[in-house]
């Protein structure tokens, strides 16, 4: 009797010990990520929300304002209403969903050809995602340079389309289209690769079954087989596209060389934040703009989840 008790006792003790050890492992393995995540992702968002309710010029302590900053954004800021808001909407809709559809189209086309040419073309399409900021400003600023030795100007003059060089990067009417083209050019990133992999890993039998069920052409095939089959990759691609779009906000400033951009032609909300935060030191107002941006991103991703998330 006594020995039996002793045995079950040690067993219980052993189990408890193992459980404790397990909890410790979980704790220590998660610790670095959770700490860094809190410090550099969660806290900045929380502080942005707090500062957005204050007036703060870095030197004095923040004074509480309530929702004044938000009200001012939508009523008192002519640059925001006249340029930043329409620009951001146009840029993010064209580069976000536009770039996303383009990368799906490219991925789908690539899946229809053989492996070797596919790898080469996929590399060409992905290469702009690897070039980095230095490259973007060097290449595109040289190509669109505003005098006759700029490549685009020289070409257009050679073809007699124009007779005087155009100041592409300083004129409001050309800057936005150029920035959109450059952003689209650099938008075939990780999401594009995920979608390509998703299509290639598709189940051949599903396609055969669909054709037996009466699908007749490639378009129906994409809508009824390919996209439903790779919804998880479609969603991942969409989230990556949203992030890339708003991260690419620096392109206009890099190409024109100034913030604010010439006549605010490509002033996006990210540039507006930098302008207020690092140039004018109105941190409360800049933080309110950040919160607005985070909300916009959140709405975009809600739409993506609505479209592609698998319902349990």
């Amino acid at each position, binding site marked *: 009797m006594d020995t039996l008790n002793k045995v079950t006792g040690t067993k219980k003790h052993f189990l408890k010990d193992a459980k404790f050890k*397990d*909890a410790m*492992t979980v704790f220590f*393995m*998660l610790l670095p*990520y959770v700490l*860094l*995540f809190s*410090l*550099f992702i969660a*806290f*900045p968002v929380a502080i*942005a929300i707090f*500062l957005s309710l204050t007036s703060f010029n870095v030197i004095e302590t923040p004074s509480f304002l309530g929702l004044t900053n938000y009200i001012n954004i939508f009523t008192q800021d002519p640059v925001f209403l006249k340029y930043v808001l329409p620009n951001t909407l146009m840029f993010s809709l064209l580069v976000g969903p536009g770039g996303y559809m383009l990368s799906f189209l490219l991925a789908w086309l690539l899946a*229809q*050809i*053989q*492996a070797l040419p596919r790898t080469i073309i996929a*590399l*060409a*399409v*992905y*290469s702009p995602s*690897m*070039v*980095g*900021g*230095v*490259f973007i400003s060097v*290449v595109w*600023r040289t190509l669109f340079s*505003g005098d*006759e*030795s700029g*490549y685009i100007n*020289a070409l257009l*003059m050679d073809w007699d389309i124009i007779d005087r060089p155009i100041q592409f990067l300083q004129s409001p009417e050309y800057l936005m289209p150029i920035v959109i083209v450059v952003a689209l*050019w650099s938008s*075939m990133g*990780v999401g594009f*690769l*995920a979608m390509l992999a*998703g299509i290639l*890993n598709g189940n*051949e039998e599903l396609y*055969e079954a*669909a*054709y037996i069920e009466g699908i007749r052409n490639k378009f129906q*095939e994409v809508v009824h087989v390919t996209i439903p089959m790779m919804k*998880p*990759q479609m969603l991942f691609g969409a989230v990556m596209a949203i*992030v890339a779009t*708003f*991260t690419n906000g620096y392109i206009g400033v890099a190409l024109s060389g100034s913030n604010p951009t010439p006549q605010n032609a490509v002033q996006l909300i990210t540039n507006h934040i930098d302008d207020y*935060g690092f140039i004018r030191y109105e941190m409360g107002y800049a*933080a309110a703009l950040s919160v607005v941006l*985070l909300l916009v*991103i*959140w709405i975009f991703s809600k739409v993506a989840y609505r479209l592609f*998330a698998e319902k349990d």
Partner: protein
Amino acid sequence: MSFQGTKINPTSFSKSQIPFYIVLIPMATFMLLPVLFIFNQAFKPLDELFLFPPRFFVQNPTFNNFTELFRTATSTGVPLVRYLFNTLVITLIMVFLTILISTMTGYVLSKKKFRAKKALFGLNQTALMFVRTAVVIPTYFIIVQIGLNNNPLVHILPYLAVPVNVFLMKQFIDQVPDALIEAARIDGANDFQILFKLIYPLTKNAIATVAILTFQATWGAVESSSLYIQDETMKSFAFYLNTLASSNTGSAHAGVGMAAAAGLIMFLPNLIIFIIMQSRVMNTMAHAGIK
């Protein structure tokens, strides 16, 4: 009758593929043109750089732009090699630590049972859409508060927690059968041994992908140098090339060739590493779906 429908990933060429090539080749050419351009520009001698009308392709290639680039130094006398050294050290540490942290977190989120698991993974999933530039101002205050301003660690610590990396590792570790881990545990392995001896070899593809993404991000990083580092000797290679390039682009500057060489130097390592690892990356991406 054989299957007449689509053929994903065909093994041979057929005439029906021609329409795809007709769309793909011009698109790929457009994407590649800037890359071709910088290759040519970087090797042009001075007279070809300022040729009028300009010519796209180089005729007498030279390494002058590169040698000139390496001979320049900032006004404060910091040589280019110093920046290169900084970036190499930062990149090495970043790749190593990111792999370690992402695999540990991915392993715990995938294979361990604990109460907050679902919430944590959900939080990470939401953070996939985190755009760092949106909260650059609060981040700045945090960095100043914890004493990272003008501290070399600022190149590393703020950039280690990357939700996409944890997500990719977790998705990939999900593929490792639980039975394998159980067997290792019965043989007496603890969690760290399981992670390093079992999970690491089995998830090489995902680790390679995380390494590439981290390399690309760190190699080209300018944010930490331009915002948080004041000491010139601690700034990054990309930052130096960026300042050099932005003061030398357009057309009428003597440094155009140097700027192009700088752009090429930033691009080439990314390209070479990606070409070597591309099949591993594609393999990882196949598991990158959000369910």
